[in-house]
């Protein structure tokens, strides 16, 4: 009886693995791709988030030019206007006196303005601007553009009017006018404690 010669081209080849599902390594690869998809989806959600035009105003911290540190939450109970500005922006110059007037008129009634200085080339320019227009409300430089990003600000000037409960109620793009904003402020102040 002839000896059955093994086919020699099968020599040395590793044995065929008998496996029914997927190996651990394979599952790891698939899991990695799925993880990437999840991470990107999270990022997309974050990016799609637009300007906070209503609902709770994102809280932030600001270091003022005079060194104090404030947070938006400190002003819960008051009506606040968060104003984004820069010294090189002409509409910001237009609205500076209007804003200061609003501040001095409604301050006693529980209103404040928080000025966020953005994209300024040097802090000195901001300080010069503040001095030029006699601005007395709290003002600070937006470090690392955190507040600007939080509020999805595209360019100065932009202003967000926030009620006593901390919700955004109005959004203004471009320089604000005293008459327009004062009506809104009075309405929000009237919403009792």
């Amino acid at each position: 009886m002839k000896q059955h010669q093994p086919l020699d081209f099968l020599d040395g080849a590793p044995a065929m693995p008998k496996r029914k599902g997927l190996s651990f390594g394979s599952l790891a690869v698939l899991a990695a791709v799925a993880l990437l998809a999840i991470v990107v989806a999270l990022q997309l959600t974050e990016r799609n988030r637009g300007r906070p035009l209503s609902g709770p105003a994102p809280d932030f911290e600001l270091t003022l030019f005079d060194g104090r540190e404030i947070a938006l939450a400190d002003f819960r109970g008051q009506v606040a206007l968060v104003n984004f500005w820069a010294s090189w922006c002409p509409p910001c110059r237009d609205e500076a006196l209007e804003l200061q007037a609003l501040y001095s008129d409604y301050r006693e009634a529980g209103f404040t303005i928080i000025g966020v200085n953005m994209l300024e080339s040097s802090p000195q320019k901001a300080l010069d601007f503040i001095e030029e227009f006699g601005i007395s409300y709290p003002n600070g430089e937006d470090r690392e553009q955190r507040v600007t990003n939080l509020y999805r600000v595209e360019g100065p000037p932009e202003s967000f009017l926030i009620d006593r409960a901390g919700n955004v109620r109005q959004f203004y793009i471009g320089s604000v006018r005293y008459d327009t904003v004062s009506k809104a402020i009075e309405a929000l102040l009237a919403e009792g404690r």
Partner: protein
Amino acid sequence: MLAEIGLSALAIAFALAVYAAAASALGGRSQLARWQLSGRNAALLTFPSLLLAVAMLVIALMTEQYQLSYVYSVTDPQTPALYRFTALWGSQRGSLLFWSLLMSLFTTAAIALNWRAERRLMPYAIATMMAALAFFLGLSLFLENPFERWWLLPAAAPGAQEVSSALIPPLAVAPSEAALRAGAQGLNPLLRHFGMVIHPPMLYLGFVGFTIPFAFALAALAAGELSSGWIKATRRWSLIAWIFLSLGLILGGRWAYDVLGWGGYWGWDPVENAAFLPWLVGTAFIHSAMIQEKRGMLKLWNMLLVIAAFSAVMFGTFATRSGVIESVHSFARSEVGFPMLAFWAVMTLVALALLLWRWGRGELRDERQFANLLSRESLFVLNNVVFIALFIAIFWGSFGLPIVSELIFDREVTIGAETFEFFVVPLFIAMYVLMGVAPLSAWGATSLPRLGAALRPPLLLTALSVLALALSGTSLLTATAGYGVVLFAAFVALCEIYRGAKARRRLLDESWPRALRALFRRNQRRYGGYIVHLGVTVIGIGVIGSTVFQTEVQHTLERGASVAVRDYRLRYDDFIRARAVDGRMMNISVVTLSRDGREIARMRPRIDDYEQMPMTIAGAHSTLENDFYVLLIGGDRERAVFRIYINPLVNLVWWGGILLIIGTIIAVYPKVTPASRQRKREADE
């Protein structure tokens, strides 16, 4: 009327694609010819349907139908006719429809050319192609419909009266023609350039083209047909997609250089990188596929590369259209983001799962073994590793890290050219070295002495060139070394062509021209490939020259004054303000360039003022040696600010690109020999 026909055609195409996908999949599974043919025919019908839809949109654009909100947003009454046409792909909706049209075109071509040859693969392949097409048509139909029209709803509350919708709302009235004309927005002025005519279509052809090889690969995995059929079909289609992608990238670079006014042609912007990533994978695949065809090895690698190419295309188009990353090229934010992400994830996961399952069952085994480290197979594997490394580095820098950094560390980062160059430069050097060594190594095995002997002529030539460069005053050691590596690859290609032609002359006593022509004709792939390599080396020389030795300065000149830059002199002569036909205000400066006391060029760098943004158009004097490139930054008649670039050797980048395209055409040109004619006759019977 146009919108109704277009919308119907789009809806029909979508229905056909869905049906074709289902029928073909069923046909593949059940092997029933009835379903397979039905699916195929439905797939073939998608193209005329989409052609009709696109034709409607084009007619609407050309005849100024501003009631269509797409026409309203991308054109205005002043837009010239050419840019009315290119507005088809000027914004999200039109470009999505155009993309679908091209996908349908490729599918029709694939069916026409491969139906008989790859009969066993075709049903699943068509199912894959149609699934992808159905997805994009679904996006067009339900989310970004190019046939939406403006309607007025007099009955609605003020502020909600203007509505854009595809279907006619009840009680709606068409807005007045005059109001529409007055409000039409027109396209971004940056896109009103000749480059817009050809760069996006080429890129899209490249992107969409990679769907076909992916479809064949997926079909092979689904059907279990994993021998050699799928690699042949895949390689050819990959080459075609690759040519278009290469053209698209080169044209994009040229357009950026000509028009966008920053003296460069590649910015490492995420969207640019998104187009580069599939090119890298495609290049790796084209080489690696050769190994499978010749030696039956690297099957797993090749599958991975094909899947990766398609995956990269889908991820890239997702990233561009969804706004997930910061880029100058991004489309406006839209709702297509999540669906596209889901599509990418599903396709990639399904393909990988199928691949890993088949591999686990041992169906993708290599038919031969790796001989030694210097064999051509091993060097090609090393080549794959280099390209994969490039892919990882560029993907991580464009997408991975910025997303991780923002999401997890809450810090925004910019990954700039410096970071990319850190990775890319050593890897490209490795690529050029391999480009030189691999053609000289043999299939199966190569001993070191043999390889060394083959390397001696090109190395000698390289050493001589480097010496010549060093003596002629090329100062930087790094640049000279870079030139050396690139020239090495060039000399290998040239030496191989020389050897081949010399062998023919010796045996057949042909003249040099005849020998060369016969050489190319009989070995299209090999020698076409050498021309492509030559093109890549010419590009490499151009890139090194224009990056490392670039001069950039900025000067303010009074009228009549001049400034010296290197051994040139630039004089500011005049300033003209003029209004162009389409309403833009052109601020044109006139400057004169001289060298060694002789005037050599008069240039007109200018700033065009469109309503929203100014556009800087450079003036350039181009020679093989360099480009003297001038931008008008600002100023007036009395004094103007100029930015001046001297880009040495930059024109080699474009010439190298042309060489690359020529080489690819030589390599893919269908050979009509008596043998192939006979084969065709047999197939038809």
